[in-house]
């Protein structure tokens, strides 16, 4: 019964979304106030209906209603409650419903908090949001109905893929989708602005909190996914340039460019057409990501069982949205001409370089990701593009970008002083070079590129702090005066400092992991030891294991170095319901590096019991994800900037963002 209510709510939501799409857009075209005002109630109603549908599905999962196909296929009575709930989006149907829910909630939030938006802009943006809602709700109803009943009901379910029964992955999809779908708001506002032909500082200020919220969630989602792959898949790596990973990286790169270019629109009223284009591209790449993941057209380590008919439906949505919005852009963008002028060396110029390099990097990733598809459709053979391609084409635009990051915030708007910027940063540069030389001296036998990388990471971090110190004139004016400046600095200035500092931390982790990682694969008898990166690792015992819904064996490894001794446990789990095996990694995390041990297969023909074991020492690896956390923190901080609050139009807006985040978490 509850499921039927959910199904019915979903069907109603399509109708409401249709109204939300049609009436306000017509109203805006005809100048009919009453029609435009319908945007708000319809958007709220759509959000409420999709929420009811989602809760109904969650209810079916939590109560283990195996007469619902999705529940029967992906759940089981013995599953822990957390995974019963995360099972809702651990399958195709439910995850698409989550997609639609987040879309509707973002639309609803715009309606709810946008009381002071100009009516025409709001009507158009919510109308576009409604169009997106219609497409995805129809997609769910026609190809992926999560409320499909089974008759007769199964006595019990098939259980969720054990790899997904993990706290990290329980929250990864909502965060990632929050990011993907959150960019739909920037997209809808961009389309609304294109129709209206007006993009100005106020527009940029209205859109910014939504873009920031989406970016923060996408950053966290990608980091969480990467960390999950690191500790759950047992390969010891953190990024594989897999199509599905690339699918999430591309909107992040272009979204980061969008965050920076919209500052230029807001402060200087320049780069307007470009910013609109970026908003369109960011959401288009999010849709492309959804398509790549959901259609299974690319071989990916992350691919799950898929149905080609669904792929074609999403492809149709993709073509309509991207084609339609780009056509509209081509038609209307010329009317956005002009804007503030600026010299090449200026804050605007720096942000433009940032944009060009970020989009170039995203373009390179796009080419590498789609190239196999293009070749295959031309019958030119099946290929895959390997990591060396991505490392090279991604690295080349990234290095100048990272080198230039500390200059950006120091340059003045309109006309900057390159020499002055260099003079103001020479201490930071000196410190970075010092770190580089020390690293070189400490690792004289190691790769010299690594020392350069560490130097680059310190340049980013010191540069971020230095820029902050410059702003508060630390040690140049009396401390009390600096303190006043510290307190007076805007939240978005702190956001930028944290964001750029976080990039430095992530680079630090990447360099450490790339340059100094050590690995051994070996056969260990009980009691045998191996040396790895100064640690002694001993296989102490292998014991039987009985977990909540799995059995297996657990290898106890003793790790010692000097006086430190610690036991690490790597498990082989066999999940009772599916019989699917998984491997749990034994991990010792320290700021300097991770010791990572994996128990492999037992040796079949040896005299004494022995196991294959794989061990890694991953230097500095946790900074990769901590850096992403710091970046996301910076983004979150920017959300609390005064300018989103001060004055009537922004009053309600500042509150929206924690709301939007709370919804998806």
């Amino acid at each position, binding site marked *: 019964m509850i499921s039927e209510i959910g199904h019915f709510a979903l069907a109603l939501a399509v109708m409401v979304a249709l109204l939300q799409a049609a009436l306000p857009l017509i109203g805006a075209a005809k100048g009919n106030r009453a029609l435009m005002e319908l945007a708000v109630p319809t958007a709220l109603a759509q959000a409420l209906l999709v929420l009811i549908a989602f809760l109904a599905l969650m209810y079916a999962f939590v109560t283990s209603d195996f007469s619902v196909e999705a529940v029967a296929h992906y759940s089981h009575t013995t599953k822990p409650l957390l995974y019963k709930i995360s099972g809702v989006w651990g399958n195709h149907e439910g995850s698409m419903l989550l997609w639609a829910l987040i879309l509707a909630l973002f639309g609803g939030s715009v309606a709810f908090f946008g009381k002071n938006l100009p009516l025409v802009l709001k009507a158009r943006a919510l109308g576009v949001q409604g169009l997106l809602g219609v497409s995805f709700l129809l997609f769910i109803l026609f190809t992926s109905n999560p409320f499909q009943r089974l008759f007769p009901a199964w006595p019990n379910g098939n259980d969720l893929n054990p790899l997904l029964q993990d706290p990290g992955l329980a929250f990864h999809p909502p965060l990632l989708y929050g990011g993907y779908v959150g960019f739909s708001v920037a997209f809808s506002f961009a389309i609304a602005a294109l129709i209206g032909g007006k993009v100005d500082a106020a527009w940029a200020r209205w859109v910014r909190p939504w873009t920031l919220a989406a970016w923060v969630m996408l950053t966290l989602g990608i980091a969480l996914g990467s960390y999950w792959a690191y500790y759950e898949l047992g390969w010891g790596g953190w990024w594989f340039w897999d199509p599905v990973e690339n699918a999430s990286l591309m909107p992040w790169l272009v979204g980061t460019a969008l965050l920076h270019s919209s500052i230029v629109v807001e402060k200087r009223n320049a780069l307007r057409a470009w910013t609109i284009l970026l908003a369109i591209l960011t959401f288009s790449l999010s849709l492309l990501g959804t398509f790549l993941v959901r259609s299974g057209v690319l071989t990916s380590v992350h*691919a799950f069982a898929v149905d080609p008919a669904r792929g074609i439906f999403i492809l149709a949505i993709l073509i309509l949205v991207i084609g339609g919005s780009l056509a509209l852009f081509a038609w209307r963008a010329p009317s956005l001409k002009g804007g503030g002028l600026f010299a090449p060396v200026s804050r605007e110029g720096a942000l433009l370089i940032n944009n060009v390099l970020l989009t170039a990097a995203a373009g390179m990733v796009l080419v590498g990701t789609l190239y196999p598809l293009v070749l295959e459709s031309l019958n030119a053979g099946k*290929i895959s593009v390997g*990591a060396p*391609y991505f490392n*090279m*084409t991604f690295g*080349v635009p990234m290095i100048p970008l990272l080198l230039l990051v500390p200059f950006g915030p120091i340059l003045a708007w309109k006309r900057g002083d390159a020499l002055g910027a260099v003079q103001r940063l020479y201490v930071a540069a000196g410190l970075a070079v010092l770190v580089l030389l020390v690293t070189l001296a400490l690792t004289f036998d190691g790769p010299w590129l690594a020392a350069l990388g560490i130097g680059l990471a310190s340049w980013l971090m010191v540069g971020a702090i230095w820029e902050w110190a410059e702003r508060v004139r630390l040690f140049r004016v009396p401390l009390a005066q600096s303190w006043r400046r510290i307190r007076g600095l805007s939240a978005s200035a702190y956001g930028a400092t944290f964001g750029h500092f976080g990039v430095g931390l992530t680079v630090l982790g990447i360099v450490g992991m790339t340059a100094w990682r050590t690995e051994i*694969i070996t056969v260990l008898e009980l009691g045998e030891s191996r040396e790895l990166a100064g640690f002694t690792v001993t296989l102490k015992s292998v014991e039987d294991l009985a977990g909540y819904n799995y059995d297996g064996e657990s290898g106890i490894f003793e790790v010692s170095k000097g006086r430190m001794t610690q036991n690490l446990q790597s498990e082989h789990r066999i999940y009772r319901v599916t019989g699917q095996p998984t491997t749990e990694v034994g991990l010792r995390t320290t700021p300097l590096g991770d010791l990572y041990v994996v128990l492999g297969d037992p040796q079949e*023909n040896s005299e004494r019991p022995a196991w294959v074991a794989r061990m890694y020492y991953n230097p500095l690896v946790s900074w990769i994800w901590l850096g992403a956390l710091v970046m996301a923190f910076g983004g979150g901080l920017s959300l609390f900037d005064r300018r989103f609050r001060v004055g009537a139009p922004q009053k309600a807006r500042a509150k929206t963002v924690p709301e939007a985040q709370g919804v998806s978490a």
Partner: protein
Amino acid sequence: MTRKQRRTTFVVSGVTVLAVATLLILSAMRDSIVYFHSPTEVAAASFKIEDTIRIGGLVATDSVQRGGGETIFFSVTDMEATIPVEFTGILPDLFREGQGVVVEGTLDGSGTFIAKSVLAKHDENYMPPEVADALKKSGAWEEYQDGTMDTSDGPTARSKSDGES
């Protein structure tokens, strides 16, 4: 800077970036493209030893030999041809005899494939598209779908055992 000059700068820098990007893509692609082949194609054609390729097929039944230390031996088959594979490391959790697998590596002189990586899948029901294609080409796809396939050299038939309800 006038509007016209700015536009020129913009266009020139855009074209430069595009040109650099294209060059970069072309040169990086050359070394990173890995072609996919079915076991039949690998058996028929000759490959240079330094060519990295991918082979997709099913893991032949009774072909997996562990116990020789860290190195594992198994064969990949599309029911037409069978290629012996050598892999040093830990196999993915879902590696099973009779199931689809994609291996990436190089052929040695004797026709053994030295795998650098064995592609894991996350889901029992998932079949890598390359493997499905290889089986379709060799005509073994229908059999695999029916669950009547015999991937061993011996007489015992083996059904698709996992994940199907």
